[in-house]
């Protein structure tokens, strides 16, 4: 069941800081079992680097379960690597074979400045959420949870969008460096739910315009969907576009009529 990979060549991006220029550094992994996860392979490499008195490769990771959205590697030209619907941390060496050359790069986007080596700063995502990615609900004042029924299909659709782990792979994969999938996923999650209606249009407007100040534009390449570890569909982008358009023309004083 388990077998061993031999002679992998890693080309890893090393860069000292945000304002310095970086370059690829080549390492070889003589052998490793395919049970290992991709990040465990880098752990092992780092152990070796430290033993040789070199600095370990800096990369972002935490939960290693594909849920926190911290891990973020461009592997052989694909965000999160070759396996569909999988975050970097869940990628296992099974997906590779002996003798492979693996190129590892950080996410690249002006809104994701490189901090060091493979680690980037994704706070621009937080700014988008801060702009309106919430439902204003003061603590304590909430009515009984079952007061507003939410049809199952609706809550399922909201959940599909809400699954976004904020990893930034959509931006990394998008040829235009657009964050439409992330922003649309956040907007869709809240705008589909009854609780989200009151702020629906201001939310769409504020979040889209904040997104605009950091990221590129969507020309519907669909790369983001392919890279998304949660396989969020670009349908949400259409939804966002529609809500943004309505936000501009809606008479918000009469929303309750519709």
């Amino acid at each position, binding site marked *: 069941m388990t077998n061993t990979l031999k002679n992998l060549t890693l080309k890893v*991006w090393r860069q000292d800081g*945000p304002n310095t220029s970086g370059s*690829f550094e080549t390492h070889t992994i003589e052998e490793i079992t395919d049970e290992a996860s991709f990040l465990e392979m880098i752990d092992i490499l780092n152990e070796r680097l430290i033993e040789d008195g070199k600095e370990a490769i800096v990369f972002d990771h935490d939960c290693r379960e594909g849920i926190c959205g911290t891990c973020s590697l*461009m592997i*052989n*030209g*694909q965000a999160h690597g070759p396996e569909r619907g999988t975050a970097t941390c869940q990628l296992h060496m099974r997906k590779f074979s002996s003798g492979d050359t693996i*190129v590892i*790069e950080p996410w*690249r*986007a*002006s*809104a*994701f*400045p490189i*901090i060091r080596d493979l680690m980037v*700063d994704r*706070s*621009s995502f*937080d*700014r988008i959420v*801060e*702009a*309106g990615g919430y439902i204003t609900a003061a603590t304590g004042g909430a009515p009984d949870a079952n007061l507003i029924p939410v049809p199952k299909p609706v809550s399922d659709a909201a959940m599909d969008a809400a699954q976004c782990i904020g990893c930034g792979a959509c931006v990394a*994969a998008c*040829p*235009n*460096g*657009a964050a439409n999938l992330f922003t649309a996923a956040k907007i869709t999650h809240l705008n589909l739910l009854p609780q989200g209606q009151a702020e629906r249009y201001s939310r769409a407007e504020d979040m*889209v*315009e*904040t997104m*605009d*100040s*950091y*990221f*590129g*534009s*969507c*020309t*519907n*390449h*669909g*790369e983001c*969907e*392919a*890279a998304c570890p949660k396989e969020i569909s*670009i*349908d949400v*982008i*259409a*939804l*966002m*576009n*529609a*809500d*943004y*358009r309505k936000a*501009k*023309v809606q008479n918000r004083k009469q929303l309750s009529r519709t």
Partner: protein
Amino acid sequence: MSQTFQRGPVTGTAVKKRSRRKPFLVDYYSTAVGKKYVMAITGIIGVAFIIGHMVGNLKAYLGVIEHNGEQVYDIDVYGEFLRELLVPILPHGYALWGLRLLLIGAVVLHLHAAWSLTMLNRNARPVKYQGARDYQIANFASRTMRWSGVLVLVFIAWHLADLTWGWLNPGFEYGAIYRNLDASLSRIPVAALYIAANIALGIHLFHGVWSLFQSMGWNNPRFNRWRKGIATGIAAAVVVGNVSFPIMTLAGVISFQPLS
């Protein structure tokens, strides 16, 4: 927009500086999503024109007909009809000019949006990936929209100078559309240009028409699976229809004989 990495506490990021609201169209157009919406609308106008134009041009195959008791080329009548459109409500040619202005406006807007979005996207990733990208979904059409578009633009310019103003058309006769067509397209390089341009247009529409559904926010499980099909269909029809003219001209199916 380009982020320089800075530290320190984050707060008040969503406190709006009360900027005077711009008039809503301008305001809307000022965001990328708004621009894409405009591209879609102008794109639709473009598509409508192209299809109408192609259908009109197909009359070239009807050759000579009897019109007000005299022998004329059907397509010339069509041209005349365009100019006579809405007469007597509007004077001769006005309606056509209206349409022309609409088209010109659309192309200008479309172009401006395309240009500014392209710039935006450039800045969104100033440093390209250093390793090779391995695209999963993005296809040739979607990645070459700018080029296919520009090609079409260049073609339009040439085309107008050729068949509308006649500068590049040997012995151009105003209104003698059939004759002008034959004169122009029987030249092999010109025919080649027409073919190339229309293939480019087809590619542009192949992605463009699917893309406009998303940009317009037209998304509904009931018809989503048709969107790509519609795009392919329109692109194919335009290419087949338009490319047929130069070919048929070279093949001699479209060939002009003076009618006494």
